[in-house]
């Protein structure tokens, strides 16, 4: 039946034991894609959703019209942030493996997505991340100690033990709280952007979801409302090829790019090399300029690869080749930016090693500091009665009673 069936079942290009195969990925050479003005007509920029905007070539040189021309101190800061994110991930992943935290999600291989995108936005712009955007929190000066404290659910946790690890937040610096439910932040970002427009403020909003999450209703709601009201928002799809065990084809990526998803609503889409910090920066900047000048929403697809497991609860060797990441044609974003700086003469392998070491040490110091606020096994602990707070602004009677009941039971 399967042979002559009209039911098409998407199959991953390679499964465990097979040779990685990225022939399905359409690539453009660095510098090859034009950079149209932000006020171009839709039909004149549709190519951006098929081609792949790239700046860094194989020799790590910046090419073409999308080169944002960033100075080396900015680029070095970007590199530092990417290294910091990776070191943070590495430590936290290991802490989970040692049972110090209950859960963790790495962004290995996707660091340029958050750092490149975040850097191109203003501090007043509001970010609505997904759980693999820890880079955005770090970029927006969320203290590592605080982020770690959150993962420890300790007395310094900014959400007071209410959430699982990695569901960060930073209200002060305009990064939203993360939800366990995929894609819910997407229409919220559109609403936030609409409010900015209603209030006449020039801040914009940006949000991120994974390739798999585009199938959710909230993706559609966000695109529809953004298109109808021309909301000043950037909608990012991080296509890291996988959604837990299903490859991007199961989310509908076999026939057309994710960047193309908004075309039918008149939302321009840009497909960008997500492992090329310069390209990510440039494309985000372009979209931000559109939004800020009243041009409305842009959908950006960031083509990247999930270098690690989905989460610490996952074992990817069950569903994809072990060496797939190594075969990914867009490489390692960190390696590429470093190469660029080295080839430009502003950085060296030695400096890099030293910086890596420094970040590693910094992360370790932060971890030590974070644990002074409590761990899962050692105090200080959050006080159990805090569990009843913030359900409502003011605690209603039934929660006061339940709180009292618990305190009595716990002998507090």
């Amino acid at each position, binding site marked *: 039946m399967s042979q002559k069936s009209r039911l098409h079942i998407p199959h991953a290009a390679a499964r465990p034991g097979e040779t990685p195969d990225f022939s399905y990925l359409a690539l453009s050479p660095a510098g090859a894609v034009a950079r149209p003005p932000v006020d171009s007509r839709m039909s004149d920029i549709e190519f951006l959703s098929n081609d792949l905007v790239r700046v860094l070539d194989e020799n790590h040189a910046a090419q073409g019209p999308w080169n944002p021309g960033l100075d080396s101190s900015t680029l070095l800061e970007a590199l530092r942030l990417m290294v910091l994110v990776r070191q943070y991930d590495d430590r936290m992943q290991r802490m989970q493996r040692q049972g110090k935290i209950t859960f963790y999600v790495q962004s290995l291989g996707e660091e340029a997505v958050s750092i490149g995108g975040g850097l191109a936005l203003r501090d007043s712009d509001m970010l609505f991340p997904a759980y693999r955007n820890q880079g955005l929190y770090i970029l927006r000066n969320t203290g590592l100690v605080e982020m770690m404290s959150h993962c420890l659910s300790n007395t310094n946790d900014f959400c007071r033990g209410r959430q699982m690890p990695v569901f960060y937040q930073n209200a002060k610096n305009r990064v*939203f709280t993360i939800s366990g439910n995929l894609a819910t932040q997407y229409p919220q970002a559109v*609403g936030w952007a609409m409010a900015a427009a209603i209030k006449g403020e020039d801040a914009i909003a940006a949000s991120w979801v994974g390739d798999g999450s585009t199938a959710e209703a909230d993706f559609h709601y*966000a695109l529809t409302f953004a298109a109808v009201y021309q909301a000043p928002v950037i909608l990012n799809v991080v296509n890291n090829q996988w959604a837990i065990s299903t490859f991007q084809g199961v989310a509908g990526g076999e026939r057309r790019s994710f960047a193309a998803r908004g075309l039918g609503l008149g939302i321009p889409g840009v497909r960008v090399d997500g492992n090329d910090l310069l390209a990510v920066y440039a494309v985000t900047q372009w979209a931000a300029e559109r939004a800020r000048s009243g041009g409305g929403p842009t959908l950006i697809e960031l083509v990247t690869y999930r270098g690690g497991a989905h989460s610490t609860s996952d074992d990817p060797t069950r569903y994809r080749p072990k060496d797939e990441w190594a075969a990914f044609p867009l490489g390692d974003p960190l390696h590429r930016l470093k190469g660029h700086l080295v080839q430009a003469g502003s950085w060296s392998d030695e400096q890099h090693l030293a910086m890596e070491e420094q970040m590693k040490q910094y992360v370790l110091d932060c971890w030590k500091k974070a644990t002074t606020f409590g761990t899962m096994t050692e105090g200080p602990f959050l006080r159990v009665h805090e569990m009843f707070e913030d359900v409502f*602004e003011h605690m209603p009677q039934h929660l006061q009673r339940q709180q009292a009941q618990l305190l009595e039971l716990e002998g507090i």
Partner: protein
Amino acid sequence: MAQMTMIQAINSALDIMLDIDPSVVILGEDVGYFGGVFRCTEGLQKKYGDHRVIDAPIAEGGIIGTAIGLGVNGLRPVAEIQFADYIYPGFDQVVSELARLRYRSDGTFYSPVTIRTPCGGGIRGGQTHSQSPEAIFTHISGLITVMPSNPFDAKGLLVSAIESNDPVIFFEPKRIYNGPFDGDPNNPSVPWSSHPLGEVPEAYYNVPLGKAALVETGHELTIISYGTIVHVAQAAAKLAGVSADIIDVRTLMPLDIDTIRQSVSKTGRCLVAHEATRFCGYGAELVATVQEECFWSLEAPIERVTGWDTPYPHAFEWQYFPGQKRLLAGIRKVMEAK
């Protein structure tokens, strides 16, 4: 004071809040140019502009999702869902986001959204224009759930809902939009102008959330209800000739337990009534609460009178609706039990 229908009272509340608070915005299907299919937002877009009273795409989840974002960015959104039966496509944004934002962020993020939605049957709407899904929302921690039974409360409670920094699901029993309803469809329809609670101040006032109203005072029986059924209960109690405390819960969550306890401790008998389906409905919680709070005062089993555990059938609207006959039978049962 003016005579207002419930629709006018709701319109008045929205008008006043749009006026005094520039952060209030309204969005929903057909609420803008047209003024809403039940006319609750009539004239408001004209008066406050198309940036404050906004026609939305037909996407309940999108309306609630964007409303949350509007609220996080400092506005105070009032979203209309055209019928309560159509709130389900937005259920995830309500449950997982709106209700949880404050908690999960330790109070640093919240969104003061009010969701208004007409509920209940009695207008020949069949199964998809008649539902009363309030119980589902009262079970979700983090939501305030309200259902007024008259124009005065509707305006005052809606003002409080909009002012509340907590999300409020505001159910409007559409059967009594234009007049109270005693549960007998054969009786001539009565306008709100003939009801004391159809007298509504034109100016600002509020009715606090979380407080029940004792709409009748008696000593033999406590009837606990809300929405349309409050009026049916009043008629049925009269018919039965029983002296009853009739409690209009008004705010379903948080529940005003004190008012209930005081009454049932006094009367020793209790009947709980609503239009929604029975199994695991809000009445179950009322019964559970009463038996927990007043067990030793109870002289008879608490009686529940509700809609049947079926969808609301078009052909049998009045056999489905818990009208006077059913209330009366319930009252007799609880009064005669011993």
